[in-house]
Every structure is written in C-alpha cells, then in structure tokens.
C-alpha cells in the first residue's frame, strides 16, 4: 500500500510543470497587475516611476472616454438576446427527427469555427458602402419596393443605404462625444454592423449545440404527457421545454456576459481601429491602446482591474437572479 506521503510527492511531481506555468503566467501576473495599477508605470520612461495609490482609478472615473467606451461595450452586447433566442430556435428545429441534421449543424457551426481575422476582413468587404454586397442588396430592396417614396409619403426625407462601418449612427441614437441620445444619430452604423456580424457568427455556434444537448436531455415522457393532455405547441414550450432548459439558458447568459464585457478587441483592431470617432472602441480595445500604443502600463492595468470588477459583479448578480429563478 502507498503511504500518504508517497502520494503527496507523486502529486507534486505531476502538478509541478503545470503549477509552475500557472504561477509564472497567471497567478503571478494577476498580483503583479494589481500592484502596477497603483503606479504610473510607463514603458517609455518619459516620466519617473511613482506609486500613485488610487491615482489611476480616480483619473479613470473622470475619463470621459472610459464611460463612452463602456457604453459602446454594453451597446455591442445588445445582440446577445437575439443570438441566444436564435440559437434556441434553431436548436428546437434541429431537435426534430429530420433528414440532413448533420449537414445543417455543420453549416450553422461554420462561422463560429472559422471566426477570426479572416472572417472579419471578409465582413469589412461585405460592408463596403461602395461595392459591398450588403449595400447592393439594400439598394436593390430600396428601389424595388420604392421604400424612399413610401417614407416620403409618411413624412420622412427619403432613404439611403447606411454606410455601415463608416457611420457613427446607431439604433438607439447615442451621441458621439457624450453619453446621451440625440435624434440626428438615429440610424444604422458601425456598431450595428458589428452586432449583425456577431449574431451571424454566433447564432449556430456553441450556444446552439448546448441547447441541442439540453433538449435531448428532456425526458420524453414530459412532452408526451403534455401532448396527451392536449397542450398546444406553445404551451408545451412555455411550460415544459423552457423550464427544463433553464440551467442551459442560465449558463449561456452568464458566459455571454463574461465574453461580451471583455469582447470587441479583435473586430475593432481588424475592421474599424475603434472608429468612426471611437464608436466601436470597447473597454478591451481601450486597454490595448493604452497599454500597447501609449505604453501607459499603470493606467491600462487599472482599467483591466475595473473591467474584471465589472465582470465579477455582473456574474454574481447573474448567479443571484439565476438561483432565485431556478429554485422555485
């Protein structure tokens, strides 16, 4: 028989490579980053290093850009409910005993699987206001259905296709330099373009697969019993399927918040450089520009800790609400 000491030594041996990497590249950096966030450290050494206590955090609260970029980040998450509902809808369609399920599933998952710089470059071309196919379709629809005349008849001023990634307009009418809504900003712009792309990438992705797994775990007796009682499809969904899927939905929402709050970096760097007028700059992209373009390591670290705190608080709130909803 092995002794406990022997087993401890074996465990240390097995854990060591991973634990060393964990300490050097994860745990250590987390503490280091927290410490640095209380300093004015600049990699270019234009100013002498100093501990400035809460200086970065105070500056951050008065940084108008931070609030604008926080609103941008939140705005880009508006696509989340659409994508989640779409994933659920597709999963329900796929969960029936139809032919060609594997083919559909493959096609739906393709954008998620190939997502990255190449797809973003593709979407940049698709959104090109001059020759992109998106506006070709929009212009075709406007002229075919006489939409301009229709809008004029209703008292509007005619319709032109949006310039997508070049426009600061958005469906909420958010202003460019202040956190407020103005009428002139109402329309479709860069942020909406990114949301549409995000829904296209994500709708048939991991969330749909999670819902498929969730659906296959619902005991058939439950739906059969409801059918025998003469329940309508909608009622079966509302009172059987939806409650049974609650843990899956909960998991998806929590993960979407975590991903959404720290997202938006890649598309901003590849497609818009955070523009036009900073409207697609998210907190993650702001941290990147502060740290790796301006080399303000101290300020960027403070920003990253604020981002972490926001994620932490929202995850806790999600858990609280989730547990209340799940346990009745």
């Amino acid at each position: 028989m092995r002794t406990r000491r022997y087993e401890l030594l074996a465990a240390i041996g097995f854990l060591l490579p991973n634990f060393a990497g964990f300490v050097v590249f994860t745990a250590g950096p987390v503490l280091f980053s927290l410490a640095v966030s209380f300093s004015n450290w600049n990699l270019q050494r234009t100013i002498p290093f100093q501990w400035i206590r809460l200086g970065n955090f105070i500056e951050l609260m008065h940084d108008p850009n931070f609030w604008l970029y926080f609103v941008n980040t939140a705005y880009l998450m508006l696509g989340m409910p659409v994508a989640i509902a779409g994933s659920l809808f597709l999963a329900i369609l796929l969960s029936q005993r139809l032919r060609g399920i594997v083919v559909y599933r493959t096609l739906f998952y393709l954008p998620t699987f190939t997502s990255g710089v190449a797809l973003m470059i593709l979407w940049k071309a698709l959104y090109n206001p001059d020759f992109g196919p998106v506006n070709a379709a929009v212009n075709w629809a406007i002229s075919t259905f006489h939409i301009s005349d229709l809008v004029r008849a209703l008292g509007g001023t005619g319709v032109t296709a949006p310039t997508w990634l070049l426009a600061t307009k958005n469906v909420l009418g958010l202003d460019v330099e202040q956190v407020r809504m103005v009428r002139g900003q109402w329309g479709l712009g860069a942020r909406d373009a990114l949301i549409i792309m995000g829904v296209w990438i994500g709708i048939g992705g991991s969330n749909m697969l999670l819902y498929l797994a969730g659906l296959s775990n619902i005991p058939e007796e439950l739906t059969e019993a409801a059918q025998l009682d003469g329940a309508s499809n909608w009622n079966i969904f509302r009172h059987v399927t939806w409650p049974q899927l609650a843990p899956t939905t909960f998991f998806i929402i929590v993960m979407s918040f975590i991903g959404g709050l720290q997202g938006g970096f890649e598309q901003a760097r590849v497609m818009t450089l955070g523009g036009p007028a900073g409207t697609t700059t998210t907190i993650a992209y702001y941290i990147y520009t502060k740290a790796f373009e301006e080399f303000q390591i101290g300020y960027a670290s403070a920003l990253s800790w604020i981002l972490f705190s926001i994620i932490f608080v929202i995850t806790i709130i999600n858990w609280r609400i989730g547990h209340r909803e799940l346990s009745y």
Partner: protein
Amino acid sequence: MSTGPTSESSAKSGGLAAWWYRRGRFAASHLGLGLTAITMLVPFLWMVLASFKPLVEVEQLNPFPSVWHPENYIKVFQQIPFARYYFNSVFIAAWVTLLQCLTSAMAAYAFARLRWRWRDGVFRLYLATLMIPGVVTMIPNYTLMVKLHLLDSYLGLIVPASFSAFGTFLLRQFMLTIPPSLDEAAAMDGASPWSIFWNVIMPISRAGLVTLAIFTFLGTYGSFFWPLILIKSEYLRTLPIGMLYFDTIYGRQTNLIMAASVMNIIPLVILFVAAQKFIVRGIQLGAVKG
C-alpha cells in the same frame, strides 16, 4: 444523436389530418433551417467567388467572375510570405497543443486520481483564475517577455500558452468519470503512479485529450492579441497577423485578400468536418460539467 422531444407514438396515432399537420410542420422546419443555412453560406460563397475575380470585377454586382483567375492564389504567395505565415501558425499551434495537453493531463491526474492535502484548495485556486479576463494577465506577461528578451521569438509565443487552467479543468472532469478500481488494481500490481498515468489513465482519456487538442490548436491557430503585441519581425508573423498587415497595406486588392482568407479558413473547414463528433461533444461536455 439529436433525438428530440417530438414523440413518435402520438404522431402515429393521428389520422389523415395529423399526417398533413406533421408534413406541414416538417416542411416549415426545413424552410427555416434552409434559409438559415443559406444566410450562413452566402458570405462564404461571395468570398470564394471574389477570390477568383480580376480586381475590377470585385466592385461589380455580378457575384460571378467573367473569367476565372486561379492565379490570384499564386499572387498572394508572391506578394507576401504567406507560406511562412502558414508554417509559423501550424508550428506554434502544434507545439502549444502538445505541451498544453501534456501539462494539463498531468495536473488533471494529480487533481482527479491522487489523494493529497490541499488538493481541493489548489484546484479552487485554478478555477478562480478562469474568470479573470485575459487582458489582466496579458500586460504583466508582456513586460515579463520584455525582461526575458523573449519579445519577437517562437519561445515567447509558445511557452506562456503551454499551461492552461481550463485544459486542466476539462481533463480532470474526464478523469473523474474513470472508475477508481482501475488504478487501485494497477497499484496492487506494483505499478508506479507514472505508469498508471501513462498506461491506464491516458488511453482511457483519449476522447478528452482529442477534444482539448482540437480546441487548443484552434485557439492558437486563430490567436490574435498575443502575437500582435509580441511579434515585430515579418518572418515570425502568424496567419492572423500576416492577414492583418496584408489587409492594411494591400487593402485595395480585395480579390487577393479574399484568396488569402480562403486559404486561411480551409484547414479549419477540413478539421471541422474530420473531427465534428469530438467538437460537438467537447462543447457540450465542457458546459454540462462546468
């Protein structure tokens, strides 16, 4: 695998009306699924067709090239060191995958199959870091690479990515499902912990390892942030970074950019078709247990 909630028995019992109802529902489902599938495919089709067009035709509405220009693909290799980017991406992703699977499996073995003091505490520490945004550790890791003179090197791209709390977590969940009697029997026979790990646990965890390997390979192949800040030399660029600069510098040549994008995506499509089973199961497992 997709056995849904629709019940066969109640459907059989209906008469002609029920048969028509079922028919209509199936047709509607296929319509919804088909339209979605087309929406998913159209951007890809546009990309492939544009990659075969002469430049002037990219700006025209007709999606088909008047004359097909497969030489666009050759031009990409002439304008930028695309083969080099390919090699860098695959080389780095292969090393990271190998190292990450090995270190994660060893740690997972310690967490799932060995009994020792502080085990659950250390594991909770690992779990806690999963929630920390990557950008928090990215900045200190960058300064660490500066100090170690690993900026602009393969080592700087490979080593920090070779340790994963998530991989450890995933494989631990896998290894927990293996009955303990297996290692106990091997231990009775006098097998060392390493030999139990290598000869008993690893072969059984093959499905988990393949899943982790696929996701790690994918993640590294497409990884953008870390190589972007770390790499300065052109010959060390990975595909995403090479594509980014290609687009920035030669952005007007949409047909060539699309050809490069197609070549970037093809290995992923092949990987997905070949390993679909593992990928689907891996996503579902990672969440259900999480």
